[in-house]
Structures are given as structure tokens and as C-alpha cells.
């Protein structure tokens, strides 16, 4: 059975994805900063689905450790999914250098570089699938979330480059573009229901994208339409808008 590594495993999307993969008999490596919070989940997955689950500590901001992290993976997984993300608070963070840097590093630098390292290992082996989670917020900078958005833009571009590079090495890269998702990260925000996905449906799409080897997927197709319009508004008009 294949092995999937999930980075940022305590997130709601990661948990839902772990269950969806476990149901298919995929063995799991769950990486998170605080693995104690995942003990119950790991025993639950292992018991219910009769699979093996490894918990591995990983701080996405500690890139010095990435090399060891990958060398210690046993085995090197067939699939690597990174769900790490941090929304922050735009209005506060734009005046706080430290927080702004943290958001950019957590959403771009950390995920991009670890997936880059994993891709190198996959290319060397000659097989593997990378799934990176990015966001529609990266498609155009808005006053309301441009720190988060620009980091996600970087992530989307990075994944696109990886995909282009690895195609000939039999390593596939999928970009998942999220709109609103009903998770711990967005708890307390008033999200429009029709645009908001549940973690479970995100997980379903991720699993399906693995089966189909999809390239770029919008979660909730309506976002592809919305973002097409947003992207094509002339800047002269766009800058006047308040959203």
C-alpha cells in the first residue's frame, strides 16, 4: 500500500484528508509542530483502518532541520501533501513587521522549501506525487489580505514551476486552490455559505486529484469563475474597490 506524508497534520483539512486516505488503505506519516495533539487521531486511524501511522515532529519555520526530516522518513513516501497555512490579521499585521514576516514564511517559505526538498528526493527516485495547498487569495492582491495573499501567490507560482520541472521525472505536482473553508483557521469569520467548503469535501477533492493526477484544482468551482473576473478587472478600477 502507498504511503502518504501530510505536513501540517493538525489542520482540519489535513485531518479530513488523513481519514479519506486511510479509508483507502493508505499508510500515513503525519508531520506537525506539536505531535502530542495528534496521539488520539493517530491511534484512531490505525485501529479503524488497520494501517500504520507515524507521527513526526516538524516546525515549518525551521528549515535547517528539513534535510534530517526527509532523511529520517521511513520509507520515503509516495505522496506528500502540505496543508500548512496561517491567515493572520491583515490590519494588525501590516503594522507589525514580525507578524507579517511570520505569515509570509509560514505560507510560502516553509511549505515551498520543504516541498522542494521532497521533490528532489522524489525525482531522484523517479516517482511520487506532491500536493500543495494554496489559495485563491493569491490570484490578486487585495487590501483585506495581501500579506497572506502574496505569500499564497508565491506558493502557487512555486508549485507551477515544480510541476513544469518534474513532469519528465515522473513526479506529479497538484495545486489545490482553496476559497473559504470552514475550519479552525476561519472560526469566527462570517463566511458566505455558498462559497465555503467543508474540510471533508476538500479532502474528497484531494483524494480524487491524486487518482486523476490533476494539475490545478479550485475547491468549489465557482471560485474559478469569481477569480477570473477579479483577475481581469482593470487595475484602475480594481484599486478603487473596497473588498
Amino acid at each position, binding site marked *: 500500500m502507498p504511503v502518504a506524508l501530510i505536513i501540517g497534520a493538525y489542520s482540519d483539512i489535513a485531518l479530513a484528508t488523513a481519514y479519506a486516505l486511510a479509508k483507502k488503505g493508505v499508510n500515513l506519516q503525519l508531520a506537525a509542530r506539536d505531535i502530542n495533539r495528534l496521539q*488520539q*487521531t493517530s*491511534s*484512531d486511524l490505525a*485501529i*479503524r483502518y488497520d494501517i500504520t501511522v507515524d507521527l513526526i515532529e516538524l516546525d515549518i519555520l525551521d528549515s535547517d532541520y528539513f534535510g534530517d526530516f526527509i532523511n529520517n522518513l521511513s520509507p520515503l513516501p509516495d505522496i506528500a501533501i502540505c496543508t500548512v497555512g496561517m491567515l493572520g490579521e491583515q490590519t494588525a499585521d501590516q503594522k507589525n513587521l514580525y507578524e507579517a514576516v511570520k505569515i509570509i514564511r509560514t505560507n510560502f517559505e516553509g511549505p515551498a522549501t520543504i516541498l522542494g526538498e521532497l521533490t528532489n528526493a522524489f525525482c531522484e527516485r523517479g516517482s511520487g506525487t506532491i500536493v500543495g495547498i494554496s489559495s485563491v487569495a493569491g490570484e490578486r492582491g487585495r487590501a483585506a489580505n495581501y500579506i497572506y495573499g502574496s505569500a499564497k501567490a508565491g506558493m502557487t507560482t512555486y508549485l507551477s514551476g515544480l510541476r513544469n520541472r518534474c513532469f519528465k521525472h515522473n513526479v506529479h505536482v497538484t495545486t489545490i486552490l482553496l476559497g473559504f473553508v470552514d475550519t479552525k483557521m476561519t472560526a469566527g469569520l462570517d463566511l458566505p455559505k455558498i462559497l465555503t467548503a467543508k474540510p471533508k469535501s476538500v479532502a474528497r477533492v484531494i483524494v480524487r486529484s491524486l487518482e486523476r493526477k490533476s494539475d490545478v484544482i479550485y475547491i468549489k468551482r465557482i471560485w474559478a469563475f469569481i477569480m477570473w473576473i477579479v483577475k481581469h478587472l482593470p487595475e484602475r478600477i480594481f484599486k478603487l474597490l473596497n473588498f
Partner: protein
Amino acid sequence: MKLSGWGRFPMIEASLESPRSEAEIKTKLSTGTIIARGNGRAYGDSAIGRDKTIDMRNFNHMLAFNQHDGILEVEAGVLLSEIIDTFLPRGWFPFVTPGTKFVTIGGMIASDVHGKNHHKEGSMRSCVNWIDLLNPNGEILRLSATQNAELFDWTMGGMGLTGVILRAQIRLKQVSTGWIKQKTIVANNLDEIINQFEINQSATYSVAWIDYLATGKSLGRSLLMLGEHADQAHLPKSLLEDQYCQNRTTRYYMSFVPPFKVLNKTTVNAFNALYFWAGKRTTGTKFIQWNKYFYPLDSFDKWNRLYGRNGFAQFQCVLPLKSSKYGLKRLLEKTGEARQGPFLAVLKRLGPQSGKFSFPMEGYTLAFDFPVTAATLDLMKKLDEITIEYGGRFYLAKDSRMSKKIFEESDSRVVDFRNMRQETATKKHFVSHQSDRLGL
């Protein structure tokens, strides 16, 4: 938000919180009274808090399983259906199961549920090794027959009033198939059905459907259904292909609340007649799948909506063995006279009492489902009185409307329970609408 139990009566404005960690539950403890809620399958107001209701469904992890002896450790919010889905294909089945599989382990413990095997294998208590309970001080105590034994006794059947049940270790039963060998026996009256229950005490599972429309000489006419786990060696080849019955579940879904009662007097009476007629035609022995034997109603999701907007109430009492026959006769006569058409009328022989506050006692338990109307509420009051007259008592997991006075008269153990609640300070912290109503 409005909360109710499975009976959709009463509907109560409540504040429901869904903590994700034990630490979060502890912080709720200091902000007012709480009551834990599982999957909301108790019929009445047992799991609706006066101040806060704690939804335990985030605590749904299986923590450890020993595949040699079938010992399973789970968090309180794990559903029985999940346990069956996970372990039946590996040859394990719950030791004790109520009439629905959509209950949480925490709820099963709090109600000390019983199943069709109570006369032989006892209630939930008999398969619980230990419980982890959050007490009013925010400490987690391990309870078992040897450790904190008295609190263990109060917690089994204590309706969540001794603290928040967090985890438990339970024993599963080894089975070699998912099929039940069912034998159906027709009993023409009350004497016959009681006689049949008594002579079939060695059957693992037994339950009877009563045709409550039968009167006079036929009063108590019923179908007794006995069941045994079918052994792999005795299973017909055609059934062996689906050894654990995994491919045979069709589910229906009641997607709305009808503006009128689909289950009204006429339809229910017709159903009852049809059911009895169909049952009579298929007496004898046959193999049926576990889902149909144990959970016939589970295949119809949200069937409770069929009773319409006013909901329904279940009356369930147990009568001591020696007065069962006369008591049951009176209860059936009264129900027949009232012509209020219970949808379900179920009779079951129970074994001896085991816990300090659990419902079962050696004797017969009778259950009726009624749509909630002024007439049925009134009828149930009369049934309450008959129950007390014959020394019986009531099942709190089903209760939604009993008066404090009736409750006190029915159960002398109430005094000790109240004392325990004072002494352990649980009365100040764990309060449901039911405990308020009954003065627990």
C-alpha cells in the same frame, strides 16, 4: 438553539458547546452547570443542560484495541455504529446493544443500556472494564468494579449526573458471522408470551412485538423473536459469501418534518395489523442480517420526524417478575381502551438488577411509542400509576415527561442518589433539564 432528544419533545432553548479538548471541558465547568450530550438518542431531556450542554462528539477517537481478547478503549463520543463498522469484519460485535446503533459509548454508559440479551448477559455494565470520569474538581478519575467502585456504580446508569464520561474500556464479543439465526414464535395471549419468554431463557437474544389491538382473550397476542449469532460452520453457502453482511445496507432518509403526523392512529393500526400478519406467516427459523435484527429502524434515518411537529414520547417501564403478569395486563388494557395507537409496543424479559441506579430489574419491560398529544400524555400518566401500583419503575433514557412525584414513588433508590449528588458536589455542576424536573 433549540435542542431536543430523539422524541423531538420537549424542544428546549439551550446553549450547545462543542469542545475539542479535555482542557476546554474543564474551563466550562467553572462557568456554570453543564451536562454532556452524545448523539442525542435519549428520547427526552436527559442530555439538555440547564446552563450549558456539552456536545461530546469531537471526542470520537478509538484509542487502543487488543485483537486477541477484543478489548477496546475509546473516547466517549465514539458511536456504536462506528465500532460495528470497524470490528464486525474482524469478527467482533458489541456485547450489549440498544435498539439503535447511533448511540455514543458515553451515552450507553450513562444510561446503562440493555439489549435483547439482558436476561442472559446483563446490561452495558457487564462489558465495561473501566471509565474515565471528569469530576466537579476538574480531576479525571478512573472508575471500575475495583477502583472508585461506588462511583463506578453510580455512573453506570447515572445519566451523566456524576460527571463527564471521557473514555472507557469495553469488551467486545467474538462472532464468526454477521448473521443472526432468528426463530419467531407466535403467542396468542399474555400467558403464552410470558410462558414462552420463561422457557426460552437460554436464548441469547429475545424480544417480543405486541399486537396491542388484540383484546379480551387475545390480549397480549405477540410475536416472540429469538436470536443467536449464526456460526460460520452452520451458515448456508449463499450467505457465507457475505459473511459479515457488509453489502446489504440500504438507508432511507426522512428529509423533512411533515406538517401532519404520518404515524397517526389509522396508519399505525394498519401497520400493526400488517406487521403481525406478516410475522405470523414467517414463523420458524431463518437467517437475517445483524442490521435488520438489532436495528430495524436505523435503516430509516430520522424516522422520528414521522410523528410530525409535536414529536413523540416513549413510555417504558419494568415490572418485577412476580407482579408482571397482572401489571402487564392492566397496562395493555388501559392502552387498548385509550385507542391512541402506539407505533411500537415491545416486551422484553429482563435479568436481575446489577447497578445502584440502573433501570433493569428482574421482570418484564414494556415500551410504547406515542405521538405527543393531550390524550397520550394523559394516558401515560395513567400508565405511570399502574406501574407504581405493581412495583415497577421507569427508564430515564426514555423519559421526557414524568413528574417528580411519580418518579419518587417508583424508585426508592432516589434518596441515595440525591445524597450522593450532594456529597460529591455533582449537583452543583452537572444539571440537565431532566435532573431538574425530577429533582435529582
